[in-house]
């Protein structure tokens, strides 16, 4: 489940941003610090994560580390539901 969701999010990032193919987007890559995700792509990315996870993302999630890595996104927005399933 974890690998599948991270893979889907990684695919989206690479499709939106061809420059991202230059990076190894691991579950721990900081997608904001590395510039893989910028402000203009962030809204679309949030839509994707919210609809996939069925949870709302707030600005404090960005100030923290949850939205900075694909692993963090999975752990914070998907993992609880996956474990309960």
């Amino acid at each position, binding site marked *: 489940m974890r690998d599948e969701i991270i893979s889907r999010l990684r695919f989206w990032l690479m499709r939106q941003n061809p420059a991202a193919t230059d990076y190894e987007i691991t579950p721990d890559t900081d997608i904001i610090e590395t510039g893989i995700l910028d*402000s203009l792509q962030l809204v*679309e990315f*949030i839509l994707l994560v919210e609809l996939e996870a069925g949870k709302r993302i707030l600005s404090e999630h*960005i100030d923290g580390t949850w939205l900075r890595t694909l692993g963090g996104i999975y752990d914070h927005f998907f993992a609880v539901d996956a474990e309960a399933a």
Partner: protein
Amino acid sequence: MHEVKRAAATLSRVTAARFKSPHQLFDWPSAPDPDRLAMSPRLISLSAHPIWATLTDEQRWRAGLLETGYFYSLNISGERELMMGLAARLHQGPLAAASEYLLHFLQEECAHSAVFTRFCRTYLGFVYPDRQMRLPRKFLPGEEEFLFFAQVMIFEHLAGWHNMANARDGEIWPLARSIHEYHAADEARHLAFGRTVVESMWRKHSPGWGERGREQVGHYLRRYLDSLQRLYVSPFVYRDLGLPDAMRLREEVLALPARKEIERAASARAVAFLQRLPGLVLA
């Protein structure tokens, strides 16, 4: 910035004479008109998609209501950003000399937000959440100021086009139509001011950016425009309509020729204005 100061003085006089409390402008029925769409049918994003033919009249009516609420919510988000930016510039920076008009501007944006919020809370029961967030980035000298006003201008041009297109449709729910008319009238003044500021800032700062810098700014604005156009089509509206696979449906809607034509028409004036700025290429 002399022309900005002059425009601000004129617009301040007009605004002061015309401003009315948003709480006294409209009659607010307890429920939406059950016999009219809240949005002009061609502007309802699903109307050009094959799924439209499969929807019941009730679903189409609800699509119009939700998309109207979503459009107003999008404006609430944009106005929040705008109000924060205007407040930060009231008494410092290049626009401090126009602070009297900036206060009018703020007052009008606050009034719009009050009207949009009341509509959403009364007839939808909620405001669609704001998903726009800003990440820190580096700017060229003066670029942040220029982009702030250029993005505001693009946002208002798009919103204004949708306002006018709905206001011209005499068949839609009169309250929604009146709100569109009211917003469009105020935005016309904001746009007049915005264009003056954007042009003035471009003349002042862009020569120092070099060709590469101007290219980057043009590219950023193109991407901003495209991302904003995409935001007009919300998967959350589709989800709230009970339609399956909302993200896929959204991509299909965005690819429709009819949608592309709406995007072209809505952005035409903003694009034409920006492309007249010497050295700016929206690409």
